[in-house]
């Protein structure tokens, strides 16, 4: 297998949010939402990112599109450095990469019709004239499984699944290469969820899309992704091929996470050993020293409390950050 050129490369990405307090809004500390994350996405693949709330997976997605300005680190898209781009250049760059948001209720303007919402990116980027844009908008509606009569309706007249289709059509309008989908199906019911997942897979094939798929549901991520990265407290702890991650997780956090997912089968063929972690995720404003997971890790050693483990390749592109894996 040839290694295709990565479409997106993220190196040592960091995003810290300042905590301000006191009378003069002095900086009191910072929340390390994304703390030194490195990965790349190949053209045409789907990279899933999973993790629990507050692990920084959404901030990672937003920092890549510079919806949040990264604190430091590099993001390269087709070899071009994004963090160095100025306002207008970055705006043009966004034609290549679009986002689908979690909440189909909050991410659509309630005062615009579905048609206006979908045509807006075309207008913003000055693509076609009014007549042409209308044609394209109708075509996009059909592509995502809606009808052209839906164009005149307002968001509140649609169901959750239909709204998410509108969000996807809007993202597709400018023919992007990369779509960052932040929890695109978690607000939807099971039967609707599978419709949207199937749609996303069809569109990927049809338009040669690359996805960064962010979700907390491990089963959904496994279904749609080629490779999966696991985040914990702002850090990437493991990243590898989908099947290898689920069959042979190396990091104790990944192992616990996978064992905690309830399986929809009352008599599983293989009784899984369940690892129930004690305690809660520490606050990202005071992450533990050393390995961020050491406070809950069942295999914690002395070194874990002091030294942050390096995120490195343990063979065949199976990345993990854990001292247990060091010889």
């Amino acid at each position, binding site marked *: 297998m040839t290694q295709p050129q990565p479409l997106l490369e993220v190196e040592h990405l960091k995003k810290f949010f300042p905590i301000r307090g006191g009378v003069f809004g002095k900086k009191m500390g910072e929340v390390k939402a994304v703390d030194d994350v490195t990965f790349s996405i190949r053209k045409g693949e789907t990279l899933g990112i999973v993790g*629990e*709330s507050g692990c920084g997976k959404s901030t990672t997605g937003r920092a890549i599109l510079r919806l949040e300005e990264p604190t430091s680190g590099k993001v390269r898209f087709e070899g071009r450095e994004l963090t160095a781009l100025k306002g207008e250049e970055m705006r043009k760059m966004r034609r290549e990469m679009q986002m689908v948001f979690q909440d189909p209720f909050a991410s659509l303007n309630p005062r615009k019709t579905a048609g206006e919402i979908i045509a807006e990116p075309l207008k913003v980027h000055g693509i076609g004239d009014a007549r042409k844009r209308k044609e394209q908008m109708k075509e996009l509606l059909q592509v995502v499984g809606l009808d052209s009569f839906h164009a005149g309706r307002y968001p509140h007249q649609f*169901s959750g*699944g*239909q709204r998410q289709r509108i969000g996807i059509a809007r993202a597709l309008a400018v023919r992007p290469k990369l779509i960052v989908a932040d929890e695109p199906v978690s607000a939807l*019911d*099971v*039967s*609707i*969820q*599978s*419709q949207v*997942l*199937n749609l996303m*897979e069809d569109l990927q094939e049809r338009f040669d899309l690359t996805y960064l798929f962010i979700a*907390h549901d*491990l*089963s*959904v991520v*496994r*279904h749609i992704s080629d490779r999966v990265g696991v985040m914990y407290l702002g850090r990437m702890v493991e990243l590898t091929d*989908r*099947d290898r991650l*689920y069959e042979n997780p190396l990091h104790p956090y990944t192992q*616990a*996470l*996978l*064992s*905690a*997912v*309830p*399986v*929809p*089968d*009352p*008599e*599983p063929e293989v009784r899984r050993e*369940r690892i*129930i*972690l*004690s305690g*809660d*995720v520490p606050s990202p404003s005071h992450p533990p020293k050393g390995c961020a997971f050491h406070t809950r890790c069942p295999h914690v050693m002395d070194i874990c409390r002091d030294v942050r483990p390096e995120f490195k390749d343990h063979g065949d592109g199976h990345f993990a950050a854990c001292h247990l894996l060091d010889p």
Partner: protein
Amino acid sequence: MVRPLLEISRFKMYFHTDKGVVKAVDDVDLTVNEGEVVGLVGESGCGKSVTSLSVMGLVPRPPGRVEGGSIRLADRELTHLKGREWRKIRGNVVSMIFQEPMTSLNPVFTIGDQIVEAIRQHRKLDKKAARRLAADSLQEVGISRKGILEEYPHQLSGGMRQRVMIAMAMVCRPKLLIADEPTTALDVTIQAQILDLMRRLNRETGTAILMITHDLGVVAEMCDRVVVMYAGQVVEEADVNTLFNQPRHPYTQGLLQSIPRLGQRAERLYSIPGNVPNPKQMPTGCRFAPRCEYAMNICRTEEPGLFAIGDGQNSRCWLHVDKKEEADRDPTTTTS
């Protein structure tokens, strides 16, 4: 020996709005036996939450109105109860925990005050004894840290808040605990802790649990029996193994096929076509017919009853009728 604790039969709760009547719960039968864990499954708007709120007497009336049927809990009819009578039942015989533990705790009172209030509502204990009992109940749900009674809800994490809610719900040893999506707002590793806790409490105290959820994984791990609802009605009911291995209603089958499984990967997910019907304009005949791939002519004109198809499995579908004689219909569960 199986004794029914909660018996809901042919219960109807409609909402009368300016724009029409919403039949949120329409002819629902549901039984929870003593000590049993029953799952109530369905998608949003199927009536599972209204059913459980009706058992707690928490549906605002108006606009809600009981249009028929009964709810019996521990041999008491609940549908006629008034405000004061409800208070003797709630928290004492039946308790409820909700999806969002932050909004169900009062932010301006300490954890201790809130649990003590619940205790003193039902037990004649002085403040000191009630506080001791509150501390014990927190210990039981795995919170043993000192000073917890003096803390406020915002000082706790989501998982801890849900533990507090469970402690408060269990402190008077109710016979039935209704858990409405208790782990949906929690992370996977915290969800595992809470499910583990609920299983232990069920085993140790014998409290029956009615578990309302949309997560079939949670159902498979927690429940003895499952009731599936669709558009305000029960469409299938069976013990947990039967339901997962031999689902008989096309909706249940579709639901089970459309979830991605962690252990295996299908190339393409099954998906049920279409959307849930608008509750103000229910289709005539079977409510699932417009989305059902097996729909026959009769399905579009006549509403099927809940047919008993053996081994305690019931299914609301006309497909079962040609195999079973009409006489086989369970008269108590069939709508004519």
